[in-house]
């Protein structure tokens, strides 16, 4: 059967193993005390070479499995460099890259101890360049720190195929962030009582949670189709990735905002984790870059 959206056994196994690794090395709570956020455990797991052919030292899986892994990474707010590195490996098979974007005439990136390069979003393109940790500026209330430098001359631009891969994997992480934020809010709403009942029993909370879940379901279904189309270099890959890149960031920002609101007072404090999901959504959105759906041909055209 050639039409099949059931996750394969391979995929389930990869995700089970990833879950164990992430629970051990990247629990979200680690970010509260600013612990050293190394890529080592991810590297050892093979996260960055999952989709490379086994003849080239990879695990021989595809972008579809890799996308699902990045959903899990998003849920755990894995280091931003994990996303940049997975994409950068398409340009340089040995790269370990920080995540970055351009602002006017400068590059900003999120430096990390184990990265010597940065993958920078510049308009519609991506470029890989050497980058060290210079003096940093705090961003988003101090949860992130940006390094800043003028654009490097010594940069390599990603090709069109890598651009699509970047849209898929970044959206996958955004989806994971949305799921993580929604689940956090649900857990809180079931525990927290006001006016003598759990706030999860109020329609305002329920309906918001339902809307979050519809958004998550949309992005999740679209992610599968876009990942399959990109893997197979289908003619509609550009269309699907573009749709995904348009929906994923707004769904995640909206879900994370809702998660803070559902938490009430504690959601506005840095002691709950809800804000970490919101801030990561903004970082990933900035890295995903702009997109215009209308530039593509519709898959079934002409109607």
């Amino acid at each position, binding site marked *: *059967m*050639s*039409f*099949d*959206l*059931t*996750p*394969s056994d391979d*995929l389930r196994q990869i995700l089970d193993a990833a879950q164990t690794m992430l629970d051990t090395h990247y629990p979200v709570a680690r970010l509260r005390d600013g612990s050293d956020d190394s890529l080592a455990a991810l590297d050892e797991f093979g996260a960055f070479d999952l989709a490379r052919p086994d003849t080239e030292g990879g695990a021989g899986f595809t972008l*579809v499995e890799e996308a699902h892994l990045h959903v899990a990474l998003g849920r755990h707010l894995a280091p931003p460099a994990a996303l940049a590195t997975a994409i950068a490996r398409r340009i340089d098979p040995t790269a370990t890259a920080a995540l970055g974007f351009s602002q006017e005439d400068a590059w900003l990136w999120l430096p990390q101890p184990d990265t010597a390069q940065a993958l920078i979003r510049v308009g519609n393109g991506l470029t890989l360049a050497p980058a060290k940790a210079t003096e940093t500026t705090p961003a988003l209330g101090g949860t992130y720190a940006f390094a800043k430098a003028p654009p490097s001359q010594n940069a390599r631009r990603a090709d069109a195929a890598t651009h699509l891969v970047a849209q898929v994997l970044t959206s996958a992480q955004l989806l994971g962030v949305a799921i993580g934020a929604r689940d956090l809010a*649900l857990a809180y*709403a*079931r525990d927290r009582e006001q006016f003598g*009942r*759990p706030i*999860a*029993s*109020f*329609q305002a*909370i*329920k*309906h918001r*949670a*339902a*809307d979050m*879940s*519809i958004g998550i*379901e*949309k*992005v999740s*279904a*679209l992610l*599968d*189709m876009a990942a*399959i*189309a990109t893997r*197979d270099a*289908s003619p509609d890959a550009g*269309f*699907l990735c*573009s*749709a*995904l890149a*348009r*929906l994923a960031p707004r769904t995640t920002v909206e879900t994370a905002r809702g998660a803070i609101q559902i938490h009430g007072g504690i959601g506005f404090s840095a002691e709950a984790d809800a804000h970490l999901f919101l801030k990561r959504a903004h970082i990933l959105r900035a890295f995903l870059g702009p997109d*215009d*759906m*209308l530039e593509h041909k*519709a898959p*079934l*055209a002409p*109607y």
Partner: protein
Amino acid sequence: MDLTATQQDEAFRARARDWLCANRPAEPAPYDGPVSRTYATDWLARCHKGGWSGLAWPEAYGGQGLPPARLMLWYEEYVRARAPSTLDCTFVALNHAGPTLIARGTDAQKAFHLPRILGGRSIWCQGFSEPGAGSDLAALRATGRVEGDELVVNGQKIWSSYADIADYQELLIRTDPGASRHHGLSWVICDMSLPGITVRPIKNIAGVTHFAEVFYDNVRIPLTEVVGDLNDGWSVAMTTLAFERRTAALALQVELSVKVEDLIRLADAPAGSATSARLSDLRAEAAALRAMTWRTALREPDTPFDGSLVRLAFAELAQEIHRAAMDILGPAALADPRWSHDYLESFSETIAGGTAEIQRNIIAERILAMPREPRA
């Protein structure tokens, strides 16, 4: 996970396209009344003759037994050919009554009704909602009293689509007055020509008459017309929800995508404009709805309540597209039925079959396991 069409798939698609191109009606469908019935039954009869009716029904019952992937291809070609909307007066029979009889009917019920449905010879309507029980089917009050080998039916139904032109009705009534809420209901085949039935058509806000109120005054229905067991009607009614949501959604979703493409073409908005951004969003939303619909069709036949997510997503996108059309096209849309009629009809999306508010409750309680509200 794979979405590659095989050579056989492509051959099927080409066959569907050729047939649809040669056979689809030239005129658009009338909105209501007997002419709409004739139009719809003629078209269904022609599909039947061509071997294209009951596509998802088992072959044993005269259907084509197509797997979901083939259904997807068919509906994509169907809508692309601008064939008549599947949401016409044959919809309830093909997507609801027929599959219910297949799953729960007696041999005699199947033998009589299924061929009539597939051939476009009988039209069905639904008789679930009542004036006091819109989204709350457990509050149904119309009764069927057993007298000998008959049920004597009294009461009232509302929002019964096409009741004014239907031959049969799926009628859900309370047959055990002692039981409460979901218990004690029965699912009965009601012949609409029986004495004691009065149909009062209701004009909708788009100015057309799909809906009707139906009144039952000592209507005598033989007990042989009960489907499933007496007093087990709730479970019978639930049987086909999944079927309806899975297959019907495939066609409707493609219809929406085409609407968006039509609007994009018509608006011809400059890049970067507010209108272009809005259309870009609608196109992305339509792509996501397609992905959700495919996922539901290709992956999750046994999870009945996941349907609420895709159903609500569909309803809201349908409204959003028509609303955007009214905003973007301006005064021109007000007197253009392609847009203003469909816009007004789209209001039913978040009402019919359970309001959007009820759908959100269902998603929250059944999928997300959030606690129910305290009852009054």
